[in-house]
């Protein structure tokens, strides 16, 4: 890998309101595929208006590509609104469920301690594993994940980011 590829690209959150009807997600993901847009996470859920869903995309790409991505999204007729959120003025959270291998009592205790520091919840304890729920920014979840890598992660599920602009 060249050093250029190693340089971290800026993190963006794109928030959009889309028609809540069949086929919409297909059109959006098809666009990503056809235009070779690389996205990190995508979440879709209902909003306060029953006919609109909110779709949140996070991505790390160059600004020029971001600009194209947003313009191409805006062109999709099923997308009613698109905006790039200002990360510094946005509340955003992701939820991760992580099942961690814990062979013995000491392992379990250490993991529970780490979880406490991260204000993560222990959802399940088995004889050989602990399942933890972490909520936070993707960075925080990454930090927790890196910390418990020493114990072997059995399985992990992340929801992707939900986000809203701060203030009115």
């Amino acid at each position, binding site marked *: 890998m060249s050093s250029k590829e190693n340089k971290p690209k800026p993190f963006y959150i794109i928030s959009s309101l889309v028609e809540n009807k069949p086929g919409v997600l*297909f059109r959006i993901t098809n666009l990503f595929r056809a235009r070779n847009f690389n996205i990190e996470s995508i979440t879709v859920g209902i909003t306060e208006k029953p006919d609109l869903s909110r779709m949140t995309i996070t991505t790390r790409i160059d600004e*020029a590509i971001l*600009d*194209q991505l947003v*313009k191409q999204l*805006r*062109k*999709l007729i099923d997308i009613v609104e698109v905006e790039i959120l200002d990360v510094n003025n946005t509340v955003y959270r992701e939820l991760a469920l992580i099942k961690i291998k814990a062979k013995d009592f000491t392992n379990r205790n250490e993991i529970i301690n780490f979880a406490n520091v991260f204000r993560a919840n222990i959802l399940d304890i088995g004889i050989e594993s602990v399942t933890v729920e972490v909520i936070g920014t993707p960075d925080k979840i990454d930090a927790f994940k890196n910390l418990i890598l020493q114990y072997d992660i059995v399985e992990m599920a992340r929801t992707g980011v939900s986000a809203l602009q701060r203030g009115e």
Partner: protein
Amino acid sequence: MNNPTMSEMSGAKALMYSLEKEGVDVVFGLPGGANLPIYDALVDAKFRHILVRHEQSAAHMADGYARIKRKAGVCLATSGPGATNLITGIATAYADSSPVIAITGQVPLNMIGKDAFQETDIIGVANPCTKYAFQPRCAPEIPEVVKKSFYIAESGRPGPVLIDIPKDVQQDVTEILFPDLIKVRGYKPIVDPDLSNVGKAVELLLSSERPIIMAGGGVILSGAFSELQAIAELIMAPVVTTFKGKGAFPENHPLAMGPIGMHGHAEANRIILEADCILAVGARFSDRSVGRFDEFGKGMNIIHLDIDPAEIGKNKSVDIAIVGDVKSALRTMVKMLSKTITKKNTENPWLRRRKELIEYFSENIKDYPRELTARKALKKLRELLPPESIVTTEVGQCQMWTSLHFDVISPGTFFSSTGLGTMGFGFPASIGAKAARPDVHVVDVAGDGSFNMTENSLAVSVLENLPVIVFLLNNDMLGMVAQWQRTFYDRRYMGVHQKSCPDYVKIAEAYGANGIKAQSMDELEKAIKNALKSEVATVIDLTIDPEEDVYPFVAPGTGLKDMITGA
């Protein structure tokens, strides 16, 4: 029943009324099991139905019609294979921003997703090559869907829209309401350009010494011919076009330089590199037009005017972007410019340079010493064809020769499959164009390989009384591919020989059309005159040398400066 606002009828009948309300006067199609109710309703429709021999041609006809009429063309097909046959035509229209409405039958709602007989997920297939695809789920949705389809297809940057109607939705008889107003809340085409940017563009143009205008297909789509000419004459800028923009500007005008690009005019490819400011109008800086993106435009200011915001900065970053309708933006620029420019600058080094380049390249491009060449044939065609005639092409050398050697005089009378490069497009599209403008001559400049692909449309031309002229530059080769194999693969020919099969004069005659073989300039002249008088389609089968190459050209992956002239 006239213009019903609400009444009880079948979905298929509602479709007919909806199409009538959009002013449709002709549809091109072919029936099958899943669109029988539509065909039954067509019996009583007020518009004309033209039966095609292959659905691909129906889409090309609708496309050719749309490009000349500058409103949506309509084609019909049944589900499954009928619908998939349309796809090449739909993708062709999409690549060239042409408003085509494709209406397909679909298996009944309760069969969808069951892999029923002749079921294809055409919404899924069409997605990447349509502006939108609808599937009305009940008959009362049809009028609204049709209205939205026409609105989406024709507005903003135009493009094809598909309407896939399940058979039971066509049959369903119910109360149906016809809306006069529709709203598509996720669709907001920008029309009015940002005035402050127009002002900046005007300043930049005024301060530049070597301005050039690059006109693209957007000028033709918006019909901004007189505005373009006005602005060129005000700032005295040479005008090059993209290939799609060929004919946006009269090619016999003293400022015209012809198309740039892979098979552009040498002088156009050269002068654009010497400009200090380029005004790109309704063009998208495609690789075919500008060669390498990283090389093109270095050291010059670029003003980009386009209706599609997503085109700005897609291939080329620009200095000033104006998003909006080309016609209205140009009109504003002309107004602003004419306030400042009082005296035209007709004698300056830049215009002298233009002349110099034209003179230089008129002698420094490889030519062929034969009596009958594609170049001479096309010059002869231009001489004998009335200026308002419509000309289209197939794909290959025939297309590139037309770009190089056939001057379009009356703006908006030329089109070709420039974006997708679809062999077999030109002939059916010329029939569609003839349906739109029966009062003028329509010519398809064809290669034998391309014409072979959709020649069965001769039946449509003859039976529907839509006589067009096929100007067949017959080199007995898939010539363009052969040229590449000659140039880049050491003459290792593979898959290019047509072996004199079929005999195109006999093909024409078999369909009841007029077939003429021409092997000399004399015979060619007679053949053209004969074709112009013919009441049926004429195929002029012109024998040309299989070794005649198209020059100049810019090899793919290289820049305009690397143009090969062959001389």
